[in-house]
């Protein structure tokens, strides 16, 4: 007993040293909640600046952690650690990604009409809490931790969606988000419980080992996998758990929508890829038909994920065609983007079955491009929306004249989301397609091509409205700070499309 407590004390002491960024975020949550009470009467933006300082400090701590490879917390068995979190390059990339998205959302929130001139300390605390949850999702190596991370991020997101109490759409969006979200997580833990029953553990390493010695059968694994996938798909906003997305994205305050569509999705993918790596055998198959004969499976994760990818793109793009609300349109677009990103995961799963191993570089590259193009688009929508109250596509008429730089930025982001050269989205999609063809997923590549053609309709609809439709409305003054944020977000979209090779090289370093 004493011995086991000593071991545990050692594990905790070692873990704490690798946990600084998460601790800073947890402290930030508490500080912001308190600051909101004590800063009454001080400038309303004070809490926003506290959030910025906190995020930057966390970023510094995260930079310090670069290159680490440590499995922390949990317990130790004779054959190795059974950690809760695994800090590695893959986790680092997604944590940096989420943190950067949170940081970008602070100036967006400061500019958002409904938030301006209010303290909003609760909002920034929730943003920090959601970021912390997503950090855990990205590095979890235990199903309990992954589930806790998902719930952590979700609960903060539910509250952030409904944060504007005077806004009916926000409350409606929040209610849908929390109700469907709790259904999805309930279904997911039922799946987790079945997997626990088969393998006797919730640690990814143990699960992989147990599955390798045939601890389960086809039917059991299939049920557990489908149920657990539902939970991850909810966070990724991918088929079959995408239906919440339009209402929530439309109803939430635009900065929250931006954060959800970028950070939440990325964290969902990170958690899912980590889980998938434990779940797939060395040959990439779905542990089907091994029994006594070890028949290689003809049907595995690549096909399941590829199917979800194909349906996500199609549902998203077809749904977007009829939308007139800009945020709703981008919500469907984000479902379609989840499809393209899932395609990268399918390629990874297919690659695991081959000697070369799984390749996560196309996923990482596409995420880098997605970060800038999606946040750039939402930034413009926030700025224009909080100045003119624009919500529908028609409200953006004549933007090319009224706010030329903002229109240019949004236009570039839309072209990148569509996948036109010379933007980062084009290079990212090209890498995805070539990787899919290389791994015998030609059908998926063809579907992605058709989908890109469909998506051109609605992206160009918005572009046409901005540049060709006439409007007598006056010029919109965006402000220097907003211009600076725009430049920071849009310049990389072009850079990623023109000078892509250094970033593509870098993206290879963030796999497992």
């Amino acid at each position, binding site marked *: 007993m004493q011995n086991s407590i000593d071991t545990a004390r050692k594990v*905790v002491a070692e873990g704490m040293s690798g946990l600084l960024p998460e601790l800073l975020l947890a402290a930030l*949550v508490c500080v912001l909640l308190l600051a909101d009470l004590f800063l009454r009467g001080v400038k309303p933006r004070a809490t926003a600046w506290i959030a910025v300082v906190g995020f930057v400090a966390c970023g510094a701590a995260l930079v310090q952690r670069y290159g680490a490879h440590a499995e922390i917390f949990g317990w130790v068995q004779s054959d190795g650690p059974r950690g809760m979190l695994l800090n590695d390059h893959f986790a680092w990339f997604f944590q940096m990604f989420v943190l950067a998205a949170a940081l970008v959302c602070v100036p967006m929130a400061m500019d958002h009409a409904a938030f301006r001139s209010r303290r909003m300390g609760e909002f920034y605390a929730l943003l920090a809490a959601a970021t912390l949850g997503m950090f855990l999702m990205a590095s979890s190596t235990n199903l309990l931790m992954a589930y806790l991370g998902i719930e952590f991020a979700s609960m903060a997101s539910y509250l952030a969606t409904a*944060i504007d109490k005077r806004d009916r759409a926000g409350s409606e969006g929040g209610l849908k988000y929390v109700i469907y979200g709790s259904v999805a997580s309930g279904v997911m833990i039922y799946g987790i419980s079945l997997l626990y029953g088969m393998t006797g553990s919730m640690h990814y390493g143990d699960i992989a080992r147990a599955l390798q010695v045939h601890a389960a059968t086809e*039917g059991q694994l299939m*049920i557990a996998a489908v149920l657990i996938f539902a939970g991850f798909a909810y966070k990724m906003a991918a088929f079959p758990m995408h239906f919440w997305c339009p209402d929530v994205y439309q109803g939430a305050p635009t900065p929250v929508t931006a954060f959800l569509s970028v950070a939440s999705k990325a964290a969902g993918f990170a958690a899912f890829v980590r889980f998938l790596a434990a779940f797939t055998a060395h040959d990439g198959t779905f542990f089907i038909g091994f029994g006594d004969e070890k028949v290689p499976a003809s049907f595995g994760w690549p096909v399941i994920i590829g199917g979800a990818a194909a349906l996500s793109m199609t549902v998203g793009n077809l749904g977007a065609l009829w939308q007139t609300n800009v945020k709703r349109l981008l919500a469907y677009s984000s479902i379609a983007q989840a499809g393209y990103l899932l395609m990268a995961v399918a390629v990874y799963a297919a690659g695991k079955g081959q000697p070369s191993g799984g390749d996560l570089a196309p996923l990482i590259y596409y995420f880098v491009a997605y970060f800038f193009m999606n946040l750039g688009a939402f930034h413009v929508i926030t700025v224009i929306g909080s100045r003119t109250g624009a919500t529908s596509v028609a409200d953006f008429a004549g933007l090319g004249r009224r706010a030329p730089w903002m229109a240019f930025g949004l236009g570039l982001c839309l072209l990148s989301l569509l996948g036109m050269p010379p933007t980062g989205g084009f290079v990212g999609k090209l890498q995805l397609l070539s990787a899919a063809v290389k791994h015998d997923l030609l059908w998926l590549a063809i579907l992605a091509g058709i989908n890109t053609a469909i998506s051109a309709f609605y992206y160009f609809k918005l572009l046409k409205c901005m540049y060709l439709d006439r409007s007598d409305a006056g010029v919109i003054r965006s402000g220097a700070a907003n211009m600076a944020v725009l430049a920071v977000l849009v310049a990389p979209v072009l850079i990623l499309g023109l000078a892509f090779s250094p970033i593509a090289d870098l993206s290879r370093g963030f796999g497992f």
Partner: protein
Amino acid sequence: MDIDFGTIMFFALAIVAVVPAFMVVLARDIVRVAFWLLASLCGVAGLYILLGADFLGLTQVLVYIGGILVLILFGIMMTSKDPLHEKATASGKRSPVTGLVTGALVFAVLAAVIVGVGFEENKGVSGGEPTTTKLGEVLLTDYVLPFELVSVLLLFVLCGAAYMARRRREDAHA
């Protein structure tokens, strides 16, 4: 008779857990839904104790029944104009038959996996001794990180929910 006490208890508690669960699907109004849920949760608490998880059984009663269910009842009281009647809406009445059919399908699939394939058991392990000490030890050693994190989660959920449910100042003055 050769039937032992444990078996009888299992079937009694299983009926207490399952029958009310289906009454939740069939119940006429939202208040009855909550009370059938209460019965079902009690049955599950009994099953925990039968499984040797004494601490969980009590937690289930304290937190689930004493906390969550009371919360749900308060929610019903504060939001229902006429809680004893769930009114028909534009999209049609609630449809218990659809619910039952879907439930039956889901159960068929799960039962096929559970009965048809079966899960491996290692017989005669754990159970019997009280679990509270062991759980406390595990929560502060192996699971200390999630245990501490969940306290941060409860903190912001508490503040957020209070912020959300609090009446707006302008309303209070009006």
